[in-house]
C-alpha cells in the first residue's frame, strides 16, 4: 500500500535530470524531499504526477503501475500533486478553480470537500468570485494546494509548500498535513525551509544533481544537522 518509485530516470531536452531515483511514500507518513536548487526535485514531482515522460524506471501505487499514465489516471489512483510556482487556472474564479479540481468527485462529495477547503483557507472563502489570475502570490499558492486537496488524495505531493505563504498559513498547513497523515494520507513534501520539513517528516531523501545522495529517517537529521549540510555540498 505505498506509492513507490523505482530507479526513475526523467529527461528534459535529451538531458537526464532525474537519475535512477527510488523512493517510497507510505500512507500515514511524510517523506521530505530536499536538495539544492536545480537538483531535480520539481521534475521528480511532475514525473510522478504524470506530467513528464519517464525514460526508465517505474512508479506504482499499491502495486498497480502508473508509469507514464496520464495525469488524470494518476489522480484517479489517489495521487494529487501541487506543482511548483502557484499554478492556477488564471481566468476562472476561485470557486470555479476548486470545483474544477473536484471533477472526479460526486456532486455531494464535491460540495462537502469544497466546504472543508474553505474552512482550511478562510482567506479563499473571502474572495470566491475573484478571478484567480488577479490574486496575490500567496493566495494563488493556497488555491493550488486547494486544487490537490479537492481530490481527497491518498498520496499528496507538494512542491515548495511554503513558497510565498505567510508564516501563519504555513503553521496552519503543517497542522493540516499532520491531520491528513493521521487519516493515513502519504505525503511527499518539497520544502525550502528545512526546519519546517524536518519538523513533520518521517523520512528524508536528499537529491543532488538528480541522484539520491542521502536517504534516511528524519529523526537522525533532526539530531545531527551536520549530515544534511554534508549531503548538500
Amino acid at each position, binding site marked *: 500500500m505505498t506509492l513507490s518509485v523505482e530507479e526513475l530516470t526523467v529527461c528534459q531536452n535529451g538531458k537526464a535530470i532525474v537519475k535512477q531515483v527510488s523512493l517510497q511514500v507510505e500512507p500515514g507518513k511524510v517523506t521530505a524531499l530536499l536538495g539544492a536548487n536545480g537538483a531535480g526535485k520539481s521534475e521528480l514531482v511532475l514525473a510522478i*504526477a*504524470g*506530467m513528464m515522460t519517464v525514460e526508465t524506471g517505474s512508479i506504482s501505487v499499491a502495486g498497480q503501475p502508473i508509469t507514464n499514465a*496520464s*495525469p*488524470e489516471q494518476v*489522480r*484517479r489512483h489517489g495521487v*494529487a*500533486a501541487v*506543482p511548483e510556482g502557484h*499554478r*492556477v*487556472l*488564471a*481566468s*476562472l474564479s476561485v470557486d*470555479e*478553480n476548486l*470545483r*474544477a*479540481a473536484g*471533477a*472526479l468527485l460526486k*456532486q455531494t462529495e464535491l460540495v462537502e470537500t469544497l466546504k472543508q477547503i474553505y474552512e482550511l483557507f478562510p482567506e479563499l472563502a473571502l474572495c470566491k468570485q475573484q478571478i484567480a489570475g488577479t490574486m496575490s502570490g500567496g493566495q494563488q499558492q493556497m488555491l493550488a494546494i486547494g*486544487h*490537490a486537496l*479537492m*481530490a481527497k488524495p491518498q498520496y499528496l505531493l507538494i512542491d515548495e509548500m511554503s513558497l510565498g505563504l505567510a508564516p501563519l498559513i504555513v503553521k496552519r498547513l503543517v497542522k493540516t498535513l499532520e491531520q491528513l497523515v493521521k487519516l493515513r494520507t502519504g505525503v511527499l513534501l518539497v520544502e525550502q525551509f528545512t526546519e519546517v520539513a524536518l519538523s513533520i517528516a518521517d523520512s528524508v531523501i536528499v537529491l543532488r544533481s538528480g541522484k539520491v545522495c542521502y536517504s534516511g529517517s528524519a529523526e537522525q537529521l533532526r539530531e545531527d544537522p551536520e549530515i544534511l549540510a554534508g549531503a548538500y555540498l
Partner: protein
Amino acid sequence: MAQRTLTLFIVTALMLGTCTYLAWGKPSSVVGLFVVSGLAVGSLYSLGGIGLVVLFRATGVLNLSNGAIGALGVMLAWQLQQWNFPQIATWVIGIATTTLLALVYGRLIAPGLAWRDPVVKAVATLGFALIVLGITAFAWEDDVRKFALPSDKISYTLLGLRITLTRLIVILAAIAIVIAVWLYLSKTRTGLNMRALADNRDISALIGIPIVKTETIAWGISGLIAGFTGLMFGDLVRLEPFVITFMVIPAISAAICGQLRNLGVVLIAGLCIGVIESMLTLHPVLKSVRPMAPFVIAIIVLMWVQRGRTNYFAGN
C-alpha cells in the same frame, strides 16, 4: 457580469448609431428593406462566429477549419440529394460527417499542439482546412450547383422584404445555440471542465479533469455547429467550397467583437455587422467596399473595449 452587460450595451449602441447615420434621410421603406436583408446576412456571421467562440471557450483553439469542414458537409449533402437520398438523411449524413471531421482533428491532431501558443494552434487548423478543402474541391470539380432546403419555399414578409423560413431558422438557431451553450458552460460540470481546459491544459490534467472525454464533447459540439452552419451557408450564400471555407474570416470579426468569449455580443455583433454592411449600400462611396464592414467594425470594437486598459503583467 455588469462589465459584460455594459460591453454589450455599448457595442449595440455604437452599431445602431452607425446604422442611423447611414439611413439618415432615406425613405423608411427602403431602410427597412436593407435592415431586414442585413439581418439575414448578419445571422450567418453570428452563426459562424458562435461556432468559433464555442470551441475556443471550450478548448482554447480558434478553429479556422470550421468553414472548410462545413463546406465538405454541405457538398456531401448536396451529392446525396443528387442521388435522391431522403432529404433528412442528406442533412444528417452531412452533419455527421462534419462532426466526425471535427473529432478527428480534436482527438488526433489537436492534442499534439496543446502546449503551443494560441496563435500557432489557430494557424495549425489552417493546415487542416487546406486538407479538407483540397479533398472537397477535388471530389466536386468546379461546377454550377445549388443547395436547397424545403424551408426555402416558405416565406414571410417583413418590412416589405420576403424572408424565407431558412433565414428565420438561422436566426433562431443562433439564439438557441447562444442560450444553450451559455447554460451548458456556466451551469454544468462538463461546461466547467471545458473552461478549465481552455484556460490551461496542463493544470487541468493535473487536477484530474477527464481531458479526453471533455475535449471529445467539445469538438463534437463544434463539429455539429460547423455542419449546421455549412448547410446554411451552402443554401444561403453559395454552394462553393472556397467561398464557404473563407467565410470563416469575416465570421472571426463577429467573434472578436465578443472578445472570443461573450456569446451574446457575438450574436448581436454579427447581426449588426450584417445590417451595417447591407446599409453601406446606401452610401455612394463606401458601397464599393462594403465587405470591409466586418473587419473595420471588429477593429473598432476591440480597440474600444480594450481602451484605457494597460495590462502590465501580460506576457509569458
